[in-house]
């Protein structure tokens, strides 16, 4: 990975604390700047205050009014340059791409798999 790619800022949206922590750790180890959110509402707040975010990694099923697919759809409308990776234990790749996701990764995933998916998005960004 080039410095230009890993200097990008990623927003990780995941309600399960351990999954969020390990994802954040994996991406930080690879050199990314990482921000976190527990659900879609949190994520929208973080996005509003951080123009530097260029990538999002989001779960689908989370507490709160809006799920991860709704989040992706809204982000695509309001910030079309941001690329989103959807991760889910539900087989919902089609729905994810329909919502505007750039990539889909089924759970359970390895640290290497999520890093590879984020790297691919970063390259394309």
């Amino acid at each position, binding site marked *: 990975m080039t410095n230009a790619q890993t200097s990008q800022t990623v927003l990780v949206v995941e309600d*399960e604390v*351990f*999954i969020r*922590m*390990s*994802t954040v*750790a994996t991406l930080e180890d690879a050199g990314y700047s990482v921000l976190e959110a527990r659900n879609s509402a949190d994520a929208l707040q973080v996005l509003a205050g951080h123009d530097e975010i260029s990538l999002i990694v989001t779960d689908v*099923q989370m507490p709160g009014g809006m799920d991860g697919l709704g989040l992706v759809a809204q982000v695509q409308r309001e910030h079309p340059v941001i690329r989103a990776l959807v991760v889910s*234990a*539900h*087989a919902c790749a089609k729905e994810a791409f329909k919502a505007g996701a750039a990539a889909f990764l*089924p*759970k*359970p*995933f*390895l*640290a*290497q*798999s999520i890093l590879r998916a984020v790297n691919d998005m970063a390259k394309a960004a």
Partner: protein
Amino acid sequence: MTILFDHIEDVRTLAQIIVETVREPLLVLDHDLKILVASSSFHKSFQIDAKDTPGQLLFALDAGAWDIPALHTLLERSLVDQTVVDGFPVEQNFPRIGKRVFLLHARKVLDTEVGQPLIVLGFEDITDRRATEREKELLKKQTDDLLQQKEMLLEEMQHRIINSLQIIASILMLKARAVTSPETREHLQDAHRRVMSVAAVQQHLHASGTADVIDIAPYLEKLCRSLGDSMIGENRAAAIQVTSDKGVMASADAVSLGLIVTELVINALKYAFPDAGQPGVVVVKYQANGTNWKLTVSDNGVGRTDAGGHSGKGGLGTSLVAALAHQLEAKVETTSGEHGMNITITHSTFIAKSAA
């Protein structure tokens, strides 16, 4: 009994006999749609006195229960042209017999004596049939709803299992990062791989939409790709090759088989190639013959060493493989030499297809 009809009166008598004996309710109407003849079964079915029907207008009968606009139109058209009424449905509340469903059948005949058309009107009572059909429809809908509910519950359960396994794997990974002892880190990473091996079965069950059987070939390929991703870094020349017969296995057995593969592949990648630059290959081969199968995990590494843990000293990995094989009613055979190690897990009395 044979009856000869020489006269028109005989034909009328026959018609009267038919109307009287037919089991389904039957009416003969004149061109004004008044009742000329009503069958006994009509009187019985509608609980109408026989003396009330002759000359009665159909639509005035039974307190106007038959006064149905669509039926008006149909019968009047039948009188004018050759319109055949076949299975006209009538669902009506009748004063004496309650709610009934009938199919009406009507045909125009010509009364040669008076030169006016008549209508023969038959009634097919389908109330019970319709009730049974509705009951069946209701049962089918309830069954469909239950099946849908079951699928949703299964989907939710699988989602929770996968998410829980991801949480456990994340905790193990975070722990592995936090500890300072390399040995402890390695144990935690192995535990993480074992969890991911079990998770791979769940993922396959989820993706295939089934709850009980796994397609072995894609499962082993994905499992080994995942093991390779987690254990073979960019600086290692090792590779994992998978060859597998087509076949399915109960999910519980597939979990055990996957854990065996995980242990043996971890073991091979850890110990068979002490020189990171050595182009090592681990081959995972699954052969199936009916319900019997044979799994072989081999490598082209250094073979069993006195110092190493490559299944040489009966470590945890070896014990796990033995226990899992026992659970699968399979036996473990190990051979080792200067060209590497070969471990075979044979279920029952496996005989290769070509040798069978």
